[in-house]
């Protein structure tokens, strides 16, 4: 009885902040306002117009690349960290500390570092008589911003899973004559898949929806789907089309998560 009662705040929370907004997006997404509000799939179809669909494909592409880079950086790092003593403290300090700072502020900081003429990096390069780089306003800057901002979401779940692997399992592998490589491929890697999956979802989702990173680091020259959605709400007040775009994006995220869940049916990774 007490348990049931304790759950009510969470249920209320879920209803107010998840279910009602989702229902509103759904309703706005499949209606249009031309004099009167009526049901129509017109806006959903419009979301597949080349202008919008290309932005969507571009978002998926950038998010995928960022996720892969994050994975490549995060996995070895998590491996190293699990083998080190006091690793937990290090992890928290190196990767969680920047997260205490506001996301927007961190992105602004990158802008200051990377600026072409008088940015910090190029000033240093010029001082050392090295060639300067021009990265602001290019897709590379956007991907860099994504990788930097979302990397901790990849490291932490992988580290968690790796550090929970039973050391006896690893010893057993050795006892049975496995080399270091075999042990990694046959034991560690399969056991860490849940963490990898949850890392992928936690990086891919914010990366595909971000609109601040392309705005600042991409100099507003490249529109991602997040920018288009924001624009519909803020610039043209077209909540109907904005909701349609969000709906399409959500369906795509749902599909990709469905695919991921096939890889990890037990869902030991924990995320979603």
């Amino acid at each position, binding site marked *: 009885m007490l348990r049931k009662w*304790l759950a009510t*705040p969470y249920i209320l*929370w879920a209803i107010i902040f998840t279910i009602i907004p989702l229902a509103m997006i759904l309703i706005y997404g499949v209606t249009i306002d031309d004099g009167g509000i009526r049901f129509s799939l017109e806006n959903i179809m419009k979301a597949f117009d*080349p*202008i*919008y669909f*290309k*932005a969507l494909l571009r978002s998926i592409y950038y998010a995928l690349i960022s996720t892969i880079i994050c994975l490549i950086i995060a996995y070895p790092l998590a491996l190293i960290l699990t083998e080190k003593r006091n690793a937990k403290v290090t992890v928290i300090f190196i990767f969680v500390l920047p997260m205490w700072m506001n996301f927007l502020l961190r992105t*602004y900081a990158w*802008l200051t570092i990377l*600026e*072409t*003429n*008088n*940015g910090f990096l190029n000033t240093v390069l010029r001082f050392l008589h090295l060639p300067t780089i*021009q990265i*602001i*306003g290019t897709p590379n800057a956007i991907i860099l911003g994504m990788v930097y901002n979302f990397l901790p979401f990849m490291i932490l779940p992988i580290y968690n899973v790796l550090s929970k692997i039973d050391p006896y399992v690893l010893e057993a592998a050795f006892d049975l004559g496995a080399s270091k490589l075999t042990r990694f491929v046959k034991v560690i890697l399969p056991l860490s898949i849940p963490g990898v999956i949850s890392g992928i979802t936690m990086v891919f989702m914010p990366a595909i929806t971000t609109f601040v990173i392309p*705005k*600042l680091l*991409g*100099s*507003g*020259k*490249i*529109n991602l789907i997040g*920018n*288009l959605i924001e*624009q*519909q709400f*803020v*610039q*043209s*007040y*077209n909540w109907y*089309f904005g909701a349609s775009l969000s709906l399409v994006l959500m369906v795509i995220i749902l599909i990709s998560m469905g695919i991921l869940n096939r890889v990890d049916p037990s869902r030991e990774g924990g995320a979603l």
Partner: protein
Amino acid sequence: MKKILLLVLSIALVFLVGCNKDSKEETVTLNVFNWGDYIGEETIAKFEEETGIKVNYEMFDSNEAMYTKLKSGAVDYDVLIPSDYMIEKLISEDMLLELDMNNIDNFKYVDDTFKGLAYDPDNKYSVAYMWGTLGILYNTEMVTEPVDSWNILWDEKYADSIIMKDSVRDSFVPALKLMGESINTMDEGKWEEALKMLQAQKAIVQGYAADEVRDKMIGEEAALSIMYSGEALLTMEENENLAYVVPKEGSNMWFDAMCIPKTAKNKAAAEQFINFMTRPDIAFENADYIGYSTPITEAKKMLDPEIQNDPAAYPSADILEQCEVFIDLGQKMTDFTLEKWNELKAY
């Protein structure tokens, strides 16, 4: 842990419920909603002292944010100070009260140039507060030739040194004006043509920036950018190499004006506030502190002569004649222009 969470949640709930209670106070309270950092430092205190009305001053950072908050009905605002196109939108949605000019005696001080503007042709709903133009802010060290035309934004010499605004209407102004068109044209063909110009320009544009453009101009990351005069005047204070010009082809002219929404509880006090803000000595104080251009002639005369004669703050009548106020294009046309904008950004 759960207990703490529960406690926090219940406190939050109590707070949410508590917020709705109307506080009953004897003195009249006026809810004023204005842009951030957009009023003299002592102006409100002076008004409170003179009239005995208490002012509850709130700030917004964009017209859209103001609109959303006004619509949500969270606070019954008495005085708003949004921009021209937003006022037009509010009028068309029947959200503003007509002003009683008998109570706003100081309206006579508003320069005739700033009366009967397109967003409020009969001056029924609004009194201008500040005004300005859209123009080119440029670095005189990096651009040595004279700047007087929008054409320079297409000059390949300045490749990767030009910053446009991340806003449809603003960024289309140079193209439409170069074509000799109205910035409020409803002709879709003209917008298509302007889009072609902007697409050609994109190769040499460094970016389409919002507020961060100020930092970029101060840090000399770019040679040229389009900017609003008020913002430009503030940016120029930070870097002495910067100059601002309104191109000869004409441009957009903007206004922030005071108006009273239908939610107002104290219309008389609100009109008193508008009247107070329009009084020359107060308007001078405001303009002097904010650094934007005042529509009150008498107040302008009190300013430092250097500012009065600064073409960046007060462009010549010839140029102003070429300038237009943005008119709300309506939902259909707005969607169309936004589509063109997205086409530009779609590569």
